[in-house]
């Protein structure tokens, strides 16, 4: 709609990020005031860490071999809890129609949603990562900055793909059930490289060992953030 708007109300290119940030701020403000999804996702994540701790024999498998897998399984599933809400939020009172009728471009709506989800996922991770380190007695060492960088890299891809599929799932009958089915295959090239890179860091191996995985992660981000941005308008009924 707004793409064909008259010149007086035209869409200004610099407003892309401003619009996206405004939308993300709105979503995060709602989340901050209700705290329902964030609390649920964090409690789920910590519970999962504790349960995983009892599923293996610590004398047989060293913690740093198991922790990366546990970490990324938990990140993925707790992320899905937040993604489900992303567009469900807009369905009450048909708020989504209002959003679409507004001045914002489709792309900035998507970017805003991705940003909000990224902050959400990063928030859950900020609490889960220390919990895993504590319960699994991990020595992250001096490479903790690299670990955070990798977590953010993978989370960006996770948020972009997850947001797109959340938009698709919101149009279906089985939204909550369908989202993991559609997204998990897409998370494979994110979760495996992220877990492998984390494993290299936690084992204290030289960082060069993780380079092919890290490149894959970056390539995924680049390709899928662009592709999701391009196809997002197709998820909207005109």
């Amino acid at each position, binding site marked *: 709609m707004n793409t064909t708007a008259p010149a007086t109300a035209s869409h200004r290119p610099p407003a892309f990020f401003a619009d996206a940030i405004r939308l993300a701020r709105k979503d995060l403000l709602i989340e901050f005031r209700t705290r329902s999804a964030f609390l649920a996702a964090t409690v789920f994540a910590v519970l999962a860490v504790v349960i995983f701790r009892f599923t293996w024999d610590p004398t047989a498998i060293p913690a740093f071999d198991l922790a990366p897998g546990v970490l990324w399984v938990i990140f993925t599933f707790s992320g899905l809890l937040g993604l489900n809400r992303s567009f469900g939020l807009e369905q009450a009172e048909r708020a989504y129609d209002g959003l679409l009728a507004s001045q914002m471009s489709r792309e900035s709506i998507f970017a805003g949603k991705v940003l909000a989800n990224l902050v959400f996922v990063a928030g859950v991770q900020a609490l889960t990562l220390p919990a895993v380190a504590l319960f699994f007695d991990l020595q992250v060492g001096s490479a903790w900055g690299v670990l955070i960088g990798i977590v953010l890299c993978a989370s960006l891809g996770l948020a972009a793909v997850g947001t797109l599929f959340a938009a*698709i799932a919101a*149009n279906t009958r*089985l939204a909550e059930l369908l989202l993991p*089915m559609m997204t998990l295959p897409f998370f494979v*090239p994110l979760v495996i490289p992220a877990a492998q890179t984390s494993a290299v860091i936690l084992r204290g191996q030289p960082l060069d060992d993780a380079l092919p995985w890290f490149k894959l992660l970056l390539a995924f981000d680049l390709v899928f953030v662009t592709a999701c941005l391009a196809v997002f308008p*197709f998820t909207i009924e005109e």
Partner: protein
Amino acid sequence: MATSAATISRGTVPDVKAFDSFLAISLIAVLASCVRAIWFTPVDAMLGAAQKNFYVHVPAAIVGLYVACGLLAISSILYLWLKDERLDRLAEASAEVGLLFMGIVLVTGPIWARTSWGTWWVWEARITSTLFLWLLVLGYLVLRGAVESPESRARLSAVMGALAALLVPFIHLTVKLFRGMHPQPVVLKPEKPSMPPEMLATFLMATVAFLLLFFALLRMRMRWATLRDARAALEGA
């Protein structure tokens, strides 16, 4: 709506036939290639009779993984561009028939692996990619089943199909970074196929037969989808 229903009911609806001769021919071809593979092709000196699995496994993989998934990806991308409902039916049909052929690959593979590698399942690059692709197509079909309106169904599933086309190389790269033990391709490789001529002939025959079966099933499935859409249009009118 009424006009589109009328044009559909007059012009483009396929005839409903009890006997599909294309399907019958393709089934005979598959049967013939099985007969040739079992009785008229020499037994492999190294791998023994288990090698016969090759004449089903590899043609099914070529048809299911390359032809069906290729058609699904191309028709999804083209649908987003052209918005032609025939492309949507093509995507739907290739996903469903492709799932069947990939299922054949995933069943015959472990049976062969049990005798040759001594284990049913190995987390190897090609095998893992195939499994993920199978799950991806399954997810695609579940998505199709979960959307009510035909227009939304076509649009949303085309988005997923287009993204899946981008995902496949990534999945393959990811699992390839783990070391592989799957037999290297013996037919589709840059140099000449390393196989005796009798075996190659049987293999090519089986591949053609599987391709025929694929297109026969695809045609049947697309006809069915056309009839379903025509009925929906008539009911909506």
